[in-house]
């Protein structure tokens, strides 16, 4: 799966997991997920952490990295690709 496909897949999964009333095309990958962007909150953050663990088998080792990793769909995709590579290596 290339990065572009991963971004599209993430958008779909975020919509399903958080029951968002938007379409994947409505989500701009570089837009912030929290506060002004999609308006997600701390409960959603927990849902996203579980999503990443369940779907991509990637655990967020350091909770302080959370705001950086979950800043946008783009940053989530980068984190997943980087950690999958690490694991594969």
């Amino acid at each position, binding site marked *: 799966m290339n990065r572009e496909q991963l971004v599209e897949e993430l958008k779909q999964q975020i919509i399903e997991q*958080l029951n968002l009333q938007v379409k994947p095309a409505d989500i701009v990958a570089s837009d912030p997920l929290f506060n002004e962007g999609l308006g997600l909150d701390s409960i959603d953050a927990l849902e996203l952490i579980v999503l990443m663990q369940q779907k991509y088998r990637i655990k967020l080792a350091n909770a302080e990295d959370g705001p950086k990793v979950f800043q946008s769909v783009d940053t989530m995709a980068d984190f997943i690709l980087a950690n999958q590579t690490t694991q594969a290596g």
Partner: protein
Amino acid sequence: MFINGASAISPLPVFDALTKGINFEFLTAAKGRVAEPDYSNLIDPKLIRRMSRIIRMGVVTALDALKQAAIANPDAILTGTAFGCLEDTGVFLKRLVENKEEMLTPTAFIQSTHNTVGAQVALLLKCHSYNNTYVQRAHSFELSLLDAQLWLTEHAGQAVLVGAADELTDYSYSLLERFGTFKHQCGGEGAAYFLVQSAASASSWAEIETIHTLYQPTEEELLELVRSISAPAKEQPVDLILSGEENHDEKAHLYMNVKAAAGDNIPVVNYKQFCGTYPTASAFACWLGAYWLKTGTIPAGWGPVMPAKRILIYQTDNLGYHSLILLKAC
């Protein structure tokens, strides 16, 4: 205690009844699902996404009842529910099993408790007042009403939001069907909230004159209570009985004897044929009775020729829970 605002969502489309009236149709689907209004105009879409059906219908009816009575923040919020938030409970338990008790998401767990509906209403209103949820099978709504009555006795002039909500899920339907719960009547669900105060207002629907609960009484104890409720009202007798009787009900004789004890030739409407059977269906009956007293629109042939002044709601179940609510026109 006066109902100064009332709202319901049920399988029978009644949410807009004050403006659109009611097209009465008997429930025929085995699983009676509520006719939901367009929530997008009623709740912030960002909040709706986390709300299951029972929360949505509970919150919307609560807000609607408050709006009718022009009350921004009630002095107490009381909710009755027998099953609580079943959908979210099912989701959480399913994930618990599937994920081997790991990686559980918070939303379904947070929303699965019985007091979620009352809590969501309070959160939306930023209401820090007394908030209680009664979980007592077929007495859940009635105990909420009794608490509201006690509250208003001690705090005259205050406003209490009181109601009930229960939902039917695919899973709960299949379980309850195996127990024979739907042998005589379609399954049902619904929410109804009332804004009650100790004085009538311009927006009043009806007065709740009497609330009684009985648990496994003898038939004579029950009938004596019915007679005592009806007797003081001889000059203004009960005009209509809203009965919880189901089709081919094994307790048909009991319903017949209650009707006879309440007075001669009182018309009866079996309300579960509209909302289905569920433990807090008496909240729907309370809404329907109050609606008929407010609007005087009992369909021809169902009620008295003259506008009804008093409506008695009676229900019982196979476990021996009985309740009587007497409504009076304002």
